[in-house]
């Protein structure tokens, strides 16, 4: 029942430090939604540069696992230990619909203690620079997904939690995402991605969920 992250431990100043020393440890993690046990006894340890790929059919609990790690859902059993700041790209982009993309991203970057330069770099990374001044409500599904990923990239968070990051992305955007993930890991970051689509993450630990059920 206990989760080892307090709400206060994840808000240090995020500056431009490279080579993060991040760590993520799940121990005997279990989650029940409603009456249905989704997973139990899940163990995982990721150090700097590590990655994990959560796979499984629809409704198996991939999103729930990410939300438990992010501290948005309580764990039914077991513990989550995180060392480092979290960046979470969920189903929703969490960007203000009426603001231009750049300014919507800048809101989160500022909240993370970041600079406009980080937003510019993230926009370049996800090939969004040419629509930086377009209001978020005008973006297509794929563009909104790229924008949500740009938000995580710009946050300079140590541990990325990506829920179906490949959804709606075209081939070029997917290659850019894979490159961004590789970059993040090279810098010492950790990536946990839940996906039912192929996503190239070399040496990623695979966590299949819901296949035994």
């Amino acid at each position, binding site marked *: 029942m206990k989760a080892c992250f307090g709400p206060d431990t994840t*808000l240090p100043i995020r500056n431009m430090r490279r080579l993060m020393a991040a760590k993520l440890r799940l121990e005997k993690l279990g989650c029940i939604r409603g009456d249905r046990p989704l997973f139990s006894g899940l163990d995982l340890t990721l150090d700097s540069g590590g990655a994990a790929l959560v796979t499984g059919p629809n409704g198996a609990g991939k999103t729930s696992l990410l939300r438990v790690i992010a501290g948005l859902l309580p764990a039914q059993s077991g513990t989550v230990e995180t060392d480092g700041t979290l960046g979470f790209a969920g189903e929703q982009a969490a960007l203000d619909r009426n603001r231009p993309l750049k300014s919507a991203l800048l809101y989160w970057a500022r909240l993370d203690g970041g600079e406009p330069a980080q937003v510019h770099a993230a926009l370049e990374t996800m090939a969004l620079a040419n629509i930086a001044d377009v209001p978020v409500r005008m973006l297509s599904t794929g563009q909104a997904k790229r924008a949500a990923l740009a938000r995580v990239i710009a946050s300079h968070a140590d541990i990325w939690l990506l829920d179906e990051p490949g959804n709606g992305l075209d081939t070029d955007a997917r290659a850019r995402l894979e490159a961004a993930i590789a970059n993040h890991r090279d810098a010492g970051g950790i990536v946990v991605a839940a996906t039912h689509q192929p996503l190239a993450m070399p040496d990623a630990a695979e966590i299949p969920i819901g296949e035994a059920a």
Partner: protein
Amino acid sequence: MNALFAIARRDLAQTYSGSGWLLPLVFFLLVATLFPFAIGPDPAILGRVGGGALWTAALLAALLPIDRLIAPDRDAGVLDQYAVRGISEEVVAVAKISAHWVGFGPPLMIAALPASALLGMDADSLIRLEMGLALGSLGLAALAVTVAALVAGLPSGGALAGLLMLPLAVPILIFGAGALDELQRGAWFLLAASALLLLAVAPFATGAAIRIMRE
């Protein structure tokens, strides 16, 4: 503290960039114009019921912004993003209450100027009404954010919000309208106490409601 100011500034910018601040204000003025039609143009009667009518209008106007206070941020995943950053739900609540009051209280007090003229209130009553609204709107803003958090995500949240909020706002109405009477000095303290109580409880109730709706 930085997060608190950043969130409050964003919410306030959203209120003023949309028409969010205008709606309660126009509604308040509309009710003020309706009363002379319903009661008749007799200045003596209007002057007597005017203050109470405006307090009732203020209460109803406080209901209007509820659906845009919490639910849109919940649906867009913004509240989740605050939580992932370790910003406590109570801090988010305090930021939202502050931003909501700035977008609601002062516009209401400005709208009370023409409204009091429409109802033929004298200068003394107007001053007491404005001071009462300054205090009471604090409580109403806090209550509106709490109720918004409680009904966010419920199917008919809008209708439920009125049923939840109006009974809880009754003390503000009673003591606010009571303070219009120059003989009822005690009403001021009770109005301040009711507003303060709502203001003190709201961040915790709102925070708990935001946590529960994530399940």
